[in-house]
């Protein structure tokens, strides 16, 4: 069985890229009438300028497909940043090694304190995030965090630097359900230019992380591309191919896809191409129409008005009230949900600053149930 990185070397996106540039209205209409994009070429057609004129029917189709599989529900989660210490140099990231920000790795007591704040807000699904540093895993720190938190969080996901399967296994055994790793950009040249030092330099090693995680027993996988680093059509095509590969080879895993767009962050990076809102909608609906069973995550990187508009057209998982700084939740005022201090150590600044309760209330108004608990530790822990 070849891994995705091996397959990726042989993939040629010339034809789908051509379709994404030149597809006709008739092709888009055919796909809409069929109710599905059955091939990567059809997916590409939905990214085309011709498809922009069909955004409304594409959104309706996307909504219909999403509701069939996921219902009128949105699963809620919150990221908990454990550490912003990082050995990588990534030009666009606030945690990049040379950035002058206060660095901290939370002690276990503080992790639990932060987690309890999130628990009180309603979250039962948590994503532990850390920069890439060998010490977290080698000294059992992350494992200890998971063990502490699994007592009150039924679902725990991780977003860490890529590891070997054998090093993931103790984390699965400690109670982790999911692993997220975003490729950032699927364009190898851009990737090399942006990741200049540290283990993240290894493009293919990162690309095969979901498969190593699956082999270790993670039952939910998350992949994604950071839009704004390279041509969005190519990113979307590669991401869809990656998703397709994981669905085939990691068939027991629930796959979630994320399409974060670049947000302002400390660092030397100026983004090359902003994915415009209507093109963002195009990517989401195209992905849904191509892969109806894949979860789509939307984070607080996006502003409230856009999140409220996107929620009913294909999104299945949302974060809310997020802090991207280790220890950041303690700085929110419990009543007003305003931050009481500047978050200097944050990875990026979020755009939707509403509280989780406010987001849930809006979802409810939109006709969606905010589902806080959708997993039980008893499924994986004796």
């Amino acid at each position, binding site marked *: 069985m070849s891994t995705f990185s091996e397959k990726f070397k042989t993939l040629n996106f010339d034809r789908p890229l051509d379709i994404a540039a030149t597809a006709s209205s008739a092709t888009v209409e055919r796909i809409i009438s069929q109710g599905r994009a059955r091939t990567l070429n059809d997916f590409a057609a939905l990214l085309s300028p011709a498809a922009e004129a069909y955004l409304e029917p594409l959104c309706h189709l996307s909504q219909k497909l999403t509701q*069939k599989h996921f219902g009128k529900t949105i699963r809620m989660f919150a990221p908990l940043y454990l550490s912003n210490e990082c050995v990588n140099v990534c030009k666009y990231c606030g945690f990049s090694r040379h950035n002058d920000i206060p660095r901290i790795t939370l002690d276990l007591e503080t992790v639990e304190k932060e987690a309890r704040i999130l628990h009180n807000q309603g979250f039962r699904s948590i994503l532990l995030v850390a920069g890439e540093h060998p010490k977290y895993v080698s000294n059992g720190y992350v494992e200890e965090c998971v063990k502490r938190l699994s007592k009150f969080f039924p679902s725990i996901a991780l977003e860490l630097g890529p590891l070997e399967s054998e090093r993931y296994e103790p984390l699965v055994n400690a109670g982790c359900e999911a692993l997220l790793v975003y490729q950032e950009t699927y364009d190898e040249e851009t990737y090399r230019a942006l990741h200049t030092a540290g283990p993240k330099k290894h493009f293919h090693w990162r690309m095969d992380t979901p498969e190593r995680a699956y082999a270790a027993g993670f039952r939910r996988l998350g992949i994604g591309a950071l839009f704004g680093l390279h041509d969005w059509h190519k990113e979307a095509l590669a991401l869809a191919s990656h998703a397709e590969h994981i669905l085939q080879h990691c068939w027991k895993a629930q796959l979630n896809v994320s399409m974060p767009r670049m947000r302002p962050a400390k660092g030397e990076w100026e983004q090359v191409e902003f994915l415009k809102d209507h093109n963002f909608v195009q990517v989401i609906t195209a992905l849904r129409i191509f892969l109806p069973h894949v979860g789509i995550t939307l984070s607080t990187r996006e502003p409230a008005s856009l999140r409220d508009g996107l929620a009913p057209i294909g999104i299945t998982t949302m974060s809310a009230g997020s802090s991207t700084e280790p220890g950041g939740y303690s700085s929110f005022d419990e009543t007003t949900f305003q931050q009481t201090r500047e978050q200097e150590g944050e990875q990026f600044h979020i755009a939707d600053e509403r509280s989780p309760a406010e987001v849930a209330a809006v979802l409810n108004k939109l006709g969606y149930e905010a589902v806080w608990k959708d997993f039980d530790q008893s499924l994986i822990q004796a």
Partner: protein
Amino acid sequence: MTQQTTQPLKIGDREFTSRLFVGTGKFSSNEAMRDAADASGSELVTVALKRANLTCDSDPFANILDFLKSDRYLILPNTSGAMNAEEAIRIARLAAAAGLPKWVKLEIHPDPNYLLPDPIETLAAAEVLVKEGFTVMPYINADPVLALRLQDVGCATVMPLGAPIGSNRGIETRAQIEIIIEQARVPVVVDAGIGAPSHAAAAMEMGADAVLVNTAIAIAPDPAAMARAFAKATEAGREAYEIGLGATSTKAEASSPLTTFLNA
């Protein structure tokens, strides 16, 4: 609702007047779910344990069970999310320990996309749970031999799928379900794929003992009204089955024969 005229259904030690069972997932709110369950007239509702709080403490963020009246329905815990027998057994035991009925809708689907049930793990889990005193209702593909094997180990029903969960495609496994019904020693509940009241009626006309509907009600613009429509169709289908449907024929047959005097 019209007055019940069909025979009651017995599963395990319980008798059910309504032959429509409903699921509780995918609704736009717990209130919409509760209203639809009430409107369906159902006496059995199934709840995914993964969405419920199984500890003794009440949790306002995992309170789906608080919306269901246990005096009105039998709450049938389901093991959705379990990928193998071990996980399904563990969560079923936990639910029973938490005070839920010792009944279980056994759902083991390792593939999260089509949610098709794993026959090997389902049989293994059923065997263990039946021995532990659970009333076991396994969700299965429409496989007649598997249905028989599950009956042999003591399952209270079999629940073959009409089509994949949430697909709304109707009874695509008709030929296999007909065999399951013909051979069944326990009630047959057609589960999954029922996307329209006509599908529910068709299952009942075939001789299914009950149907379980979730997605088609949950994502309808008016779930309570759709639940009522399913209730009527289920009732009508069952009534027609009990009365006896006429044979089908490719030729026209006069509804009022003109030659009966010759037999007088």
